[in-house]
């Protein structure tokens, strides 16, 4: 009976999966469709700073006007040009002994020293050629001309003077440096401007074939699940499927995600095609177009929405999961995605209003404070709002509802974990050892965040750049690199398929550590255990994304009050004996002895058939 009704499901799901894969392949494939030709124009567009452009241009001459089809070759040639430029800077601006030899060889030919010799030796292409010619001319002009000086004396003077010039070479080269941040921007800009723009010229087509096709395919895979049988917990094959048990497919996904994160954080020039893909959409939203993080924000939001639909279907029997998933989708799509872009369009400081310090670790950066305090009402509002959130809202809401009000209802990191990360929740480590590591690491990060922010504020208000001998800026960049990029991004999300979906939230997030304190010591929230009903089956612990050994409490009949619990409610759902309930406070009834013996007049009892008829 069932089989006929369900016959359509498998083909639809299979086509969906194929469509998703094709979409995925196109999405990745588009990164490799462009050729790269470096032209004067590209150079002008990419490097707005004239000085920098003039400095680097001669070094790029070998790449100019040649078409390179291999993206890696192109980008790495550009990168090595820049790094070579930087590494050889002092050498190049130093007048070398060989150069003196070359000058002397000329001098010997003519019989005397002459300034015209210098360009022939130093050349004229590079900035340092002019510099060295000029300097040596200044220092040795008086030596020029047939003065009958012995060659040995000329050589001696040249060597002494160039040593004098060389002594101050760093003064000169310091001004010639192109620093890492700018270099990054230039490489990104050069790649973008040198690209043949296949994706940029056909964004519509590429968008349909990758994002749209993939999304549609994913939905076709996800939605039919609703029709495969009655609603309920279906975790069949979670531990036999290599996508969800940490096996091969999981590893491949991890490799892909890690690669994407590394590209995003450190090598955005490799994903310029993805930026072009969403450029029109972002232009419409914010008026100025997409940057390398736009594609991330877009895909992130899309993942939350699509996998949120999966949550709606998987947990369709549970209003709790439907409610919190709706909340997550709302906050991600409006607060994290749309509002910031609209603020940009309105020329206002842009921010994700639901994010807060210390998760939002650059909130107290000097540039942010300056920008907020100098841009009128909206800026001041954002500043006050941001501080109110963690000073007032966190303690208040956490007291009443527990950590979950933020971590599994509002937060973007939590949002991704609860939707795209849901298939991986069982991979978290439940051991006592992991709990020990967790406590040390997460509180360590909180301390780091507080010190880093305190130091930055100290510098902001006093102007003193070091605190206790440590450069506050170095501290801030170390935090950004190790915690912001490596921990929360590369490890936190990249390793979903290996270490579970809450690695960052559990081991790293300083905000989670702070909210956790309140939850642990001053909150009405707890997970209560229903008497002695636990059969120690282990479902609750297995499916706890935070790695809490829920069973160890449930089988003792103890309430679960743990700082890490994000209140996702999945333990309560997977428990086959209905043992667990998330509660805001103890709701226990006392028997009212004065009323318990009241009787009621029972006339007649309907049979169940009659009753059904009555209800209908």
């Amino acid at each position, binding site marked *: 009976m069932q089989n006929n009704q369900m016959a359509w499901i498998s083909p639809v799901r299979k086509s969906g999966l194929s469509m998703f894969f094709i979409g995925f392949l196109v999405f990745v494939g588009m990164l490799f469709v462009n050729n790269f030709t470096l032209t004067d124009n590209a150079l002008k567009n990419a490097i707005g700073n004239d000085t920098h452009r003039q400095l680097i241009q001669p070094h790029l001459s070998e790449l100019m006007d040649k078409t390179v089809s291999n993206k890696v070759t192109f980008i790495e040639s550009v990168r090595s040009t820049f790094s070579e430029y930087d590494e050889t800077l002092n050498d190049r601006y130093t007048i070398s002994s060989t150069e003196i030899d070359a000058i002397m060889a000329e001098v010997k030919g003519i019989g005397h020293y002459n300034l015209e010799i210098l360009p022939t030796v130093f050349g004229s292409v590079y900035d340092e050629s002019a510099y060295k010619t000029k300097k040596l001319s200044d220092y040795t002009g008086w030596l020029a001309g047939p003065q009958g000086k012995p060659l040995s004396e000329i050589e001696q003077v040249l060597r002494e003077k160039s040593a004098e010039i060389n002594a101050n070479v760093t003064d000169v080269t310091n001004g010639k440096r192109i620093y890492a941040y700018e270099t990054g921007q230039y490489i990104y800009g050069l790649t973008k401007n040198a690209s043949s723009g296949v994706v940029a010229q056909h964004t519509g087509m590429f968008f349909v074939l990758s994002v749209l096709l993939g999304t549609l395919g994913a939905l076709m895979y996800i939605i039919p699940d609703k029709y495969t049988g009655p609603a309920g917990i279906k975790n069949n094959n979670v531990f036999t499927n290599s996508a969800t048990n940490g096996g091969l497919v999981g590893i491949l996904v991890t490799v892909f995600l890690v690669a994407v994160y590394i590209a995003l954080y450190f090598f955005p020039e490799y994903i310029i095609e993805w930026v072009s893909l969403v450029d029109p959409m972002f232009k419409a939203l914010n008026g100025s177009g997409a940057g390398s993080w736009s594609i991330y924000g877009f895909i992130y939001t899309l993942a939350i929405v699509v996998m949120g639909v999966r949550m709606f279907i998987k947990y369709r029997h549970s209003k709790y999961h439907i409610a919190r998933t709706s909340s997550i989708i709302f906050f991600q799509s409006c607060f994290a995605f749309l509002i910031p872009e609209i603020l940009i369009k309105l020329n206002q400081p842009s921010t994700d209003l639901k994010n807060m310090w210390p998760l939002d670790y650059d909130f107290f950066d000097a540039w942010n404070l300056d920008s907020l305090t100098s841009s009128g009402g909206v800026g001041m509002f954002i500043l006050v709002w941001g501080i109110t959130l963690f000073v007032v809202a966190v303690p208040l809401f956490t007291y009443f509802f527990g950590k979950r009000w933020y971590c599994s209802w509002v937060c973007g990191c939590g949002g991704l974990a609860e939707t795209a990360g849901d298939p991986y929740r069982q991979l978290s480590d439940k051991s006592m050892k992991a709990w020990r590591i967790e406590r040390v690491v997460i509180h360590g990060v909180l301390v780091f965040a507080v010190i880093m922010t305190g130091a930055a504020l100290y510098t902001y208000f006093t102007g003193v750049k070091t605190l206790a001998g440590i450069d506050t800026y170095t501290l801030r960049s170390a935090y950004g690199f190790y915690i912001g990029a490596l921990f929360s991004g590369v490890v936190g999300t990249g390793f979903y398929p290996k270490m579970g979906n809450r690695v960052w939230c559990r081991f790293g997030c300083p905000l989670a550590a702070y909210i956790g304190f309140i939850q642990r010591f001053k909150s009405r929230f707890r997970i209560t255990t229903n008497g002695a009903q636990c059969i*120690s*089956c282990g479902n609750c612990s297995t499916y706890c994304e935070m790695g809490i050994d829920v069973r160890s409490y449930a089988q003792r009949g103890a309430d679960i009050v743990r700082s890490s619990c994000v209140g996702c409610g999945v333990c309560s759902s997977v428990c086959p004996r209905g043992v667990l309930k998330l509660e805001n406070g103890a709701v226990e009834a006392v028997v009212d002895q004065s009323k318990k013996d009241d009787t009621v007049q029972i006339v007649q009892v309907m049979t169940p058939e009659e009753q059904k008829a009555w209800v209908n």
Partner: protein
Amino acid sequence: MSRLVIIGNGVAGVTVARHVRKRSDREILIISSETEHHFSRTALMYIFMGHMKFEHTKPYEDYFWQKNRIDLKQGFVCAIDTDAKHLTLASGEQIEYADLVLATGSQSNKFGWIGQDLPGVQGLFNYQDLLLMEENCQSTKRAVLVGGGLIGIEMAEMLLSRGIDVTFLVKEERFWGNILPKEESVLVQKHGEQHGVKFLFNTELHEVVAGDDGRAKSIITKEGDEIPCEFVGLSAGVHPNIDIVSQSKVAVGRGILVNDYLETNIPNVYAVGDCAEIHVEEGRNRIEPLWYTGKMQGEALAKTIAGERTKYERGIWFNSAKFFDVEYQTYGFVGNEPVDNISSFYWQHPEKELCIRINYQTDTQVVTGINTFGIRMRHEVWENWLANSCKLKYVLQHLKDANFDPEFFRRYEQDVINTFNAQNPNSQLSLSPLHWLTKRFTKEQTHAK
């Protein structure tokens, strides 16, 4: 030497060990043959369905035992000498004890059916059964289950998760008819059918037929019908595992005979859990083959062994289970058939698989028990109501207090009350309001005992 030796590392034996350790420093040794470490038998189905791995079913991490100085030995005890106070293991090793706890658990029932030991025919009780079932299901397309209880319905769910057709032979006229009243039975049956189970009621197994390969190929019922199948699951209940004990001087009946203190006829020898048969002065001796009772017995016995002789009292009865997606809880006593002076108030949702049955004494209206399907109830509240002999009116009007469903779930107390009022037009009940605000700001309240 005061070594405590426990045979069996199931929940009963392990609970004894843990609680004795809380109270004393003596040497404790658990000998068990099935697995090296204690695991949760109740989770066998979830391993099969891929919800968990075996590791996940271990309630304590492996380091726990050493840390708590509970020695473990994997081995089979083949003889018990209560005079010399020592055990003999299959390996030949002898082990002396000062106190001995028998916690040998249960075995699946087999009723002498023809072909019951053929390959492809099995019960499900221990870890080895699980491995066997994995093997037996490799090429199985159709399965027949015999006996309609809890383990049977779990096996049905396991088999269906692999796309195997399931036919369920039930001896009685309805599912789990010796425990559930008719309406509840039908509800479970319908839900099972939605998942694809085919029930055959009033049907008994006669014979399992072997194919050319020597494996089960079909079964024949008492009526003579043949049903082809490659797998036969025997789930007609369990009985105490007393194979070894019955060869010793320890007295046995259906199980190992014990008094309320779980003491056997031999001093310093105790029995606990599934294997124990508790003597009852009037009426049939009790065997309680449940996880919960094994645990409660273990706690009581640990006190006795540690010097504080304590009766095992099981308190207000409760039990729970899950039939596919429908959860079931019961508190107090709800019989499967009508009883004198007990009335039932029954409510069932018109479409969803939800129902509540509240039984009460017809004359006094004191509530005696509840069955609830699809709605979670709070254990402590029901325990409290039953212990305080609360009457029907009070219970119905306070039903909200007992709800244990997750937040945001649709609540049915009003529907229940409406049904009651419709049935009894002379007595209009109303729900006593939940004091949301006060509850939010008040401290925990204690129970009236």
